[in-house]
């Protein structure tokens, strides 16, 4: 069966993958290069030039892999790397990995460029040149089975699990039936639902892996003394972790679960995937994800072209690289923050829309966003990005074969 066209105007990359944006990331490879990278990006920030980076000076396999996946993401056209010079990040390895994909990539080392002012000057010239070259990026039609969609919830309240999350679940069910790839995440927010989730695994051995991933999250959070539960969750009517989990879980819809992936793994074919965001091994480096944007970056590193973000209390964030569609669960919040929201799922509570209506609205909006329509957070200039330290073991064959 031929998959239907999502957009006729996607950006065709040399590896055959297609993007819905043509972003130029300016990437600092240590906090010491952050200011210079930000100054390079600033004049271009409304032209699709995004600032991202890694603060740490010590090298880390996970953060390298994340950065490589992000810089070769189909929404990315060209990349400028900014290094101080003495940090531990494998800048040459990253530069070569990006260039191997056929993308233009440049590396500026501040200590070799004569310092702050001259690096900013050179960087701006390079970005201007990259933007000009990207005007000639080949375009191609992109079908729904080439689409990867990630979902996350943040600032959840008692309405999230009733309106926005299950509406995203409806949209996911339809996308999975159209052979798109859908990713849900945050195993720490599945504590209490693992048995229900395991019953949806496409294969019994995958069920064991899903169960183990939630057990790992429970152990990890227990050691840290905190669940994935913020004060605002309780203000919004959520009382326990398992209550929050049941609501968060409904984002996954009702399709069979095809596989478990880890940050940077790109699913090979359509289906529903659980992204395991909790590090492997003993607890180290602190909380698995210090905020929602760290999770969004991981979903994007798994190839997500677009992110569906459910919020009840009212998160305003967007992201670097991929557009974030904000689906507001709470009608009072929607009235309070209308400019920041894309979809008012709170209408379900007011009896003027059904879950299917809102699911359909999300599905339609994804196609428009893929065609270039900016989301609320894009219009407002949101380009948040967070990347920290983690440790992962590679996924096993039972999890599902992936690229990279």
């Amino acid at each position: 069966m031929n998959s239907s066209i999502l957009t006729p105007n996607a950006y065709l990359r040399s590896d055959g993958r297609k993007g819905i944006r043509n972003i130029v990331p300016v990437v600092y490879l240590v906090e010491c290069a952050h200011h210079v990278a930000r100054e390079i990006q600033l004049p271009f920030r409304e032209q699709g030039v995004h600032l991202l980076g890694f603060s740490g000076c010590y090298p880390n396999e996970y953060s390298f892999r994340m950065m490589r996946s992000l810089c070769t993401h189909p929404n990315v056209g060209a990349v400028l790397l900014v290094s101080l010079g003495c940090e531990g990040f494998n800048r040459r390895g990253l530069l070569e990995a990006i260039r191997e994909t056929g993308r233009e990539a440049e590396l500026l080392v501040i200590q070799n460029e004569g310092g702050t002012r001259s690096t900013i000057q050179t960087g701006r010239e390079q970005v201007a040149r990259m933007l000009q070259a990207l005007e000639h990026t080949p375009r191609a039609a992109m079908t729904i089975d080439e689409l990867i969609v990630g979902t996350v919830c943040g600032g959840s309240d008692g309405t999230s699990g009733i309106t926005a999350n299950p509406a995203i679940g409806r949209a996911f069910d339809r996308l999975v039936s159209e052979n798109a790839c859908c990713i849900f995440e945050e195993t720490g927010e599945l504590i209490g639902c693992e048995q229900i989730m395991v019953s949806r695994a496409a294969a019994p051995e995958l069920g064991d892996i899903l169960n183990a991933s939630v057990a790992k999250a429970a152990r990890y959070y227990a050691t840290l003394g905190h669940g994935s539960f913020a004060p605002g969750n309780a203000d919004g009517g959520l009382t326990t972790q398992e209550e929050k989990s049941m609501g968060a879980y409904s984002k996954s819809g009702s399709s069979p679960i095809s596989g478990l992936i880890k940050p940077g793994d790109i699913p090979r074919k359509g289906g529903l995937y659980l992204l395991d965001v909790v590090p492997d091994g003993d607890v180290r480096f602190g909380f698995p994800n210090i905020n929602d944007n760290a999770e969004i970056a991981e979903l994007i590193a798994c190839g997500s072209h677009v992110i569906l973000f459910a919020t009840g209390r009212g998160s305003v964030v967007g992201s670097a690289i991929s557009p974030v569609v904000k689906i507001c669960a709470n009608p009072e919040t929607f009235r309070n923050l209308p400019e920041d929201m894309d979809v008012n799922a709170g209408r379900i509570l007011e009896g003027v829309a059904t879950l299917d209506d809102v699911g359909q609205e999300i599905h339609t909006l994804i196609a428009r966003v893929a065609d270039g329509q900016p989301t609320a957070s894009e219009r407002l200039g949101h380009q948040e990005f967070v990347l920290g330290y983690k440790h992962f073991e590679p996924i096993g064959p039972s999890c599902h074969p992936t690229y990279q």
Partner: protein
Amino acid sequence: MVSAIRLFTSDNVLVLTRSFEAGETIEVGNIRRTLATPVGLGHKIAACAISQGEKILKYGAPIGSATAPIEPGEHIHLHNMKSDYLPTFTLDEGREFHHTP
């Protein structure tokens, strides 16, 4: 417009679909209760009498247990229910990992 909904037939809680001020009366089904404190949209009230220790059911699934007897229509939150899950983990596993008494 309804002021509270039952998500699953087996649930013993209802979810408010609008915010209520202190002193307002919630009327849903055969429940009629005047609220002592404000209760926000998305919060839970008891659909029936719930005894101490009984499971709280929402989405058809247990989301914790009552820590006090709860009357029909009463607000259910941190003051009268608790998780059956994470605190258990926090205590047991936390002790093991932190080596604290």
